[in-house]
């Protein structure tokens, strides 16, 4: 495992090159990433509001964890590569191209929900057009599947990279071990992203494992493992690009641990006051990924308070539209529950 806190490289003439330049990120890309961060955060807030209003029964939130998801969405070839997300990945699927309207249709379980037609709980994403594989609830089942998709890429030589994401809690399940082991034995083009937010619902890391960095587990499989500050978007992007390139160039899998924090309770059914202090939550809010990134954009004159405000105004309109659109949309009919048990032509 290697640290990722490298200083910005110096150019020949001695001037420090800005990190985004070093990473080859254009202004347009930086602003798009900023937009996705804020969109995800604001959409999340709106969804909690709808929950309080009794308009949606279940919420699971990625507030606080947006940076690594937005960074990875940019590091892969969205729509070409294959992604096995988990339920806390709204920022990831938005950054990849799901629209707020589509996310809202899913959140409100409408017939046109592109993820499941209202069949799955909210936050169980899935989007065939972009190779975002349908998320299920059982934790960590996506890991061996991601290895399998990458194995298929090896067989077909299709040049695709598979990205999969899981929480710290999911790394305790045997699936994690079996998936990373298999992926490494066959040097598969897959990247395993662990979003370590310090808790599996109420169970803190200290009760889940006896190690400091989850990335150190990569050594068990003979693959590279990296721990990165998950709230530092550009650092995650640096690590993500490396991992994705390694996978694409036949260098095999990488385990990336993004250390981060969820601001909200585990879900709308949880009460986190039972197991963590308000001080802890506040502390993390001082490391907010969006604020950090905005400081950076301001320092490099890509944004200022005013333009940040404009972005939020625009996003609010987008979200208003998404909510209105989704609220107007129809629920699935009761009988439609009988469809798609098997391929239609074979339904019996």
């Amino acid at each position: 495992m290697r640290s990722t806190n490298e200083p910005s490289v110096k150019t020949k003439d001695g001037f420090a090159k800005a990190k985004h330049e070093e990473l080859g990120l254009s202004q347009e890309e930086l602003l798009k990433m900023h937009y996705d961060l804020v969109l995800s955060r604001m959409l999340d807030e709106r969804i909690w509001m709808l929950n309080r209003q009794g308009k949606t029964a279940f919420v699971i939130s990625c507030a606080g964890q947006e940076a690594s998801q937005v960074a990875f969405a940019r590091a892969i070839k969205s729509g070409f590569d294959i992604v096995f997300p988990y339920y806390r990945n709204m920022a990831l699927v938005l950054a990849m191209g799901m629209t707020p309207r589509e996310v809202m249709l899913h959140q409100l379980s409408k017939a046109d929900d592109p993820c499941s037609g209202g069949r799955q709980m909210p936050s169980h994403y899935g989007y065939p057009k972009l190779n975002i594989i349908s998320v299920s609830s059982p934790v960590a089942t996506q890991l061996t599947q991601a290895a399998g998709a990458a194995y298929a890429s090896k067989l077909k030589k299709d040049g695709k990279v598979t990205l999969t994401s899981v929480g710290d809690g999911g790394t305790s399940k045997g699936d994690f071990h079996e998936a990373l082991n298999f992926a490494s034995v066959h040097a598969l083009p897959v990247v395993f992203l662990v979003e370590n937010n310090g808790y599996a619902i109420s169970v803190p890391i200290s009760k889940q494992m006896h190690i400091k960095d989850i990335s150190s587990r990569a050594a068990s499989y003979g693959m590279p493992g990296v721990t990165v500050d998950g709230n530092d978007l550009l650092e995650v992007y640096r690590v993500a690009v490396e991992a994705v390139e390694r996978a694409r160039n036949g260098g095999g899998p990488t385990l990336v641990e993004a250390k981060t924090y969820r601001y909200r309770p585990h879900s709308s059914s949880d009460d986190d006051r039972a197991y963590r202090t308000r001080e802890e939550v506040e502390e993390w809010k001082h490391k907010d990924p969006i604020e950090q990134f905005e400081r950076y954009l301001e320092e490099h004159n890509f944004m200022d308070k005013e333009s940040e405000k404009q972005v939020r105004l625009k996003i609010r309109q987008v979200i208003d539209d998404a909510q209105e659109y989704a609220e107007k949309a129809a629920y699935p009919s009761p009988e439609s529950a009988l469809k798609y048990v098997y391929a239609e032509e074979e339904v019996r």
Partner: protein
Amino acid sequence: MAVRTVVEAIHDALMDEMRRDERVFVLGEDVGLRGGVFRATDGLQKEFGELRVLDTPLAEGCIAGVAIGAALNGMRPVAEFQFADFIHPAIEQIIDEAARIRYRSNNGFSCPVVFRAPYGGGVQGGMYHSQSVEAMFAQWPGLKVVTPSFPYDYKGLLKAAIRDADPVVFLEHKKTYALPGLRQEIPDGDYIVPIGKAKTVREGTTLSVFAYGMMLHQSLEAANLLANEGLNVEVVDLRTLRPLDKEAVINSVKKTGRALIVHEANLFGGFGGEIAAILAEEAFEYLDAPIRRCTGPDIPAMPFAQPMEDFFMPNPHKIAEAMRKLAAY
């Protein structure tokens, strides 16, 4: 006496048994500080400490294996699976190990573990927080499978399960956990409800209904609807699925001549098939009508959207309709 909901009755049983017997301990995800996502273990860690109320890593196979190993070393573990949907990674441990240790060792070892799991839907749990898994476990000799319906029985049967010398899969219908209508006066003190005994909760003559968990209550409601129509329905609460109280099932049909089996799990391959098979073999001469089943539809799991969830769940009206049809046969 105290008025208790289902989940409170479960909580009381755990509390009592842990006080009574040092060998009893609980383990599972979020059972400690959090007191369980359904609060069944609320306050236990405070009284018994972190060692006896153990928050495990997220690994159901490990939860089951650790419980089994602890039982082999003299403990009486109660393992909680957060949702029955997530018990599947533990199936190898439960059916290959727990259920067979006594048998394979020719009675040399035993495995007194209780595997608790909240099952069933109608709570907007969607495809992976609504599963009924009873048929998967009831088919394995060596296991006992308990599915109470009333707070009194939850407490008495959980105590019996914890004291049982063999592994028990204890299934708790999550929709009944806190149903206000289900509150019941139950004794504070120690009492046992024996595993393997069904209970006729409504005497009747027109037809017999066999059910458990939430569907038992829905069936009772349906039976009351029909009372006004002059139909007198008998309702049998199975309480235990393995070992099944065959006598109770057969005797009821000997009396009524008609059988309706109700469960929430989908029809094909569900537990109802076994009851029908027993009746078709051992009560054949008493049957005046076909054996009917009223169950969830044959789709992979309960959808989340309310209209589809409602479509999935058998309810008093659907059940009453099935009763009318059967009575009219």
